[in-house]
């Protein structure tokens, strides 16, 4: 209790890195024609435009720029603490950028609520698994699927046919997803009791259930052995082939280099390289900052 104490989750500097639900008046949810003008990457699914995020004195993201195009698998790598997860947090509305803007399908995400962003089509997994521990695996996925349902309290109250249909479809879709990630046998178990690796798979299934256009995976392979990583690789490719764009954060270079189409490298919140894997892996700055000796680190 010796240090000054501030709000939940943020550093003292209340103006920066504020969680979106903090009581700071939203500036201007700028959209409209203006947004169209500031759309320098036509066709991009997601544009990260000069995003800066400060935690007190620490610059976690420093004018980061990149765009992701539909259908690609896009990698985001960098040393520990480079700002990758923070980048996810900004994209999904957990933090509001100190400056800069993120646009999804041309639409700025500034000021959007977390669940609205999900409904727009961005889904994510968590590096430090955040499942609903007392719900079964199936229910976890169904929560994700609910994001796409149209009926709500009245439908449930009166058990309207449409509601029942949605429930049934949601259940089937969720089972299907569990099958896709390979844990359908554990559908009925509470997620708390799943082994670490299966929890990661479940995270992916839950995120997929929201029918995302962009799926952001934060170290999905952590805690997998090489054989399992191999299967994950196939899974990721399969997801992409089904039409979902993927943003992948991962430290396993064999996996990353084997699957991504393009990637960006961050260090201390700054972009130090981007491009195709072959080019990035030989970039001396990347090697110095991240990869170490230019061998397969795995």
């Amino acid at each position: 209790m010796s240090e000054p104490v501030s709000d939940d989750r943020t550093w003292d500097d209340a103006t920066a890195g504020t969680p979106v639900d903090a009581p700071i008046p939203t500036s201007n949810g700028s959209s409209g024609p203006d947004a169209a003008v500031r759309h320098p990457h036509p066709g991009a699914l997601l544009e990260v435009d000069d995003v800066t995020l400060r935690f007190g004195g620490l610059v976690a993201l420093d004018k980061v720029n990149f765009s992701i195009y539909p259908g690609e698998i896009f990698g985001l790598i960098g040393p520990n603490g480079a700002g990758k997860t923070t980048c996810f947090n900004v994209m999904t509305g957990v933090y509001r950028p100190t400056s800069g803007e993120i646009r999804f399908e041309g639409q700025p995400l500034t000021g959007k609520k977390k669940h609205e962003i999900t409904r727009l089509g961005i889904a994510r997994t968590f590096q430090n698994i955040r499942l609903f521990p007392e719900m079964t695996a199936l229910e976890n996925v169904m929560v994700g699927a609910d994001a796409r349902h149209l009926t709500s309290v009245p439908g449930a109250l009166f058990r309207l046919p449409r509601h029942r249909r949605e429930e049934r479809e949601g259940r089937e879709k969720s089972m299907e997803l569990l099958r896709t990630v390979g844990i359908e046998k554990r559908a009925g178990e509470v997620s708390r009791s799943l082994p670490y690796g299966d929890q990661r798979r479940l995270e992916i299934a839950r995120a997929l259930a929201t029918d995302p256009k962009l799926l952001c995976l934060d170290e999905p392979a952590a805690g997998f052995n090489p054989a399992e990583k191999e299967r994950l690789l196939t899974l990721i490719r399969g997801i992409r082939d089904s039409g979902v764009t993927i943003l992948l954060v991962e430290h396993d270079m064999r996996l990353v280099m084997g699957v991504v189409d393009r990637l960006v490298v961050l260090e201390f919140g700054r972009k130090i390289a981007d491009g195709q894997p072959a080019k990035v892996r030989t970039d001396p700055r990347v090697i110095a900052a991240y990869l170490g000796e230019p061998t397969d680190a795995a």
Partner: protein
Amino acid sequence: MNFSDLIRDFGPLTITGLAQGAIIALFALGYTLVYGVLRLINFAHSEVFMVGTFACLVVWGWFGLDQNSATPATGAVIGLLVLGLIGAMVVSGVMALIVEVAAYRPLRRRNAPPLAFLITAIGASVVISEAVGIKTDRNIRGVPPLIQPSTVFQIGNMKVTNLQILIIVLALVMMFVLDRFINGTRLGRGVRAVAQNPDSAALMGVNKTRVISLVFLLGGVMAGVASVMYVLKIGDTRYDAGFLLGIEAFTAAVLGGIGNLRGALIGGFILGVAENYGAGLFGTQWKNVVAFVLLIAILMFRPTGLLGESLGRARA
């Protein structure tokens, strides 16, 4: 509304509010400590306080004192105060331990969900207060006039009495000692570790059971001190004396940021004073409304209390 009354009585209401706040603050510590470590609203803490009020009466009774006795000589008063304090601290401390061992420990062993603890806490509270109620025929018990309040100094119409000074100073001293203990010692660090991650704390070699017992004991001892100050101030006690003040103490703990020791102190003082102002302004019957409205207003802007949580949760 009665602004002129409030302005006229501003000084006196402040000082009586501070004295009441000091008692509330010490009482609140028990909630904060236990909450900080176990995430449990220890409802039975109000009864830990209540048995303290009776304990010092019993001690003074041994010396033949009751509420109709004459005030003893100054030397004797100091001795009696110390003995009463010790008696109340011991009894409250032990009672807190008993509650932990009898009501909570079995639940911990069974990995009970947090709500279960809340309910046994309520059960324990009912059992203790009823047992005392039956034993005392639910009668009110008067306190020997150990300290005849007398004005020590006066600012305007604000008279500060010896009793008020005693209460406020004692509370501050106890708080300081406790704060140093929790934040400055190894055991205190163990307490905070258990608060944040009990499993990891065990992996660091912290004896969880001992830490939890310690926390209950400390909270109980503080409540014991509070209980003596309470009887001196109010002049009476009853089997349900803890319940009412308990709600205020818990409110104070939350107001300051539950789990945060200094928060409890600040919360207690603010609550004591605000209630008095509210009573002056709107009438005594509204004083709790003032307290709760203040609480809600503060929580709307600072959802984790004035100073935020500290013992337990992340502060960053």
